[in-house]
């Protein structure tokens, strides 16, 4: 493995359940987390629906994987950028999303929010800094 840490970003652009992309992305992120890189996730377009709280798939007979986003912090994936414009276009606010947190090792395990709402322009800047981007 290369000793240089690269910046990896996973772009999530699709709604959960209708297609397999959201779950696949989450699995790739969790597997990739073993490689000690600088990982972040971006949720934009319909991808913001992945984080909506109160998902209950019992009646459609599918696995509800929304609780798995809560495990991201355990896997040291702590940067989740949600695009403000994508939320607004869909009538959503930060309050409609699941609260996701992580414990900061360097700050006496203080619990901190993983989700950060950013504007499209800010997200574009963050994307510019990345070495590798995967889009799902």
């Amino acid at each position: 493995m290369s000793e240089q840490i690269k910046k990896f970003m996973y772009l999530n652009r699709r709604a959960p359940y209708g297609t397999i992309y959201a779950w696949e992305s989450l699995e790739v992120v969790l597997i990739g987390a073993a490689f000690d890189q600088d990982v972040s996730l971006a949720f934009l377009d319909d991808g913001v629906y992945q984080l909506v709280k109160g998902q209950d798939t019992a009646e459609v007979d599918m696995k509800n994987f929304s609780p798995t986003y809560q495990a991201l912090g355990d896997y040291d994936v702590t940067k989740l950028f949600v695009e403000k414009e994508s939320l607004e276009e869909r009538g959503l606010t930060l309050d409609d999303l699941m609260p996701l947190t992580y414990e900061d090792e360097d700050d006496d395990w203080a619990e901190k929010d993983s989700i950060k709402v950013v504007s499209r322009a800010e997200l574009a800047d963050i994307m510019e800094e990345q070495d590798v981007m995967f889009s799902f």
Partner: protein
Amino acid sequence: MDSCLGYAKQGSAVLMYEDGIYGAIKGTAIADKIAAASGVSFYVLGPDLKARGVAEDKVVDGIEIVDYAKFVALSAENDKVQAWV
């Protein structure tokens, strides 16, 4: 959803299911178009709303929330059925 609306004529019924249910949420650009479509009845599948964490009070007024049985009944009632993927 936008393009589907362009083809929905008077007397049509539009049922939103799977990821299509996002078209039924209040406060979006699509919501206004649904309100403006006259003579078209709108339905949304309840279990798919639930799966995606969309509460019933978030659904645009005038859209009827239906279950699987009503889904089948609608398909039977309307003599032509087009699935818009």
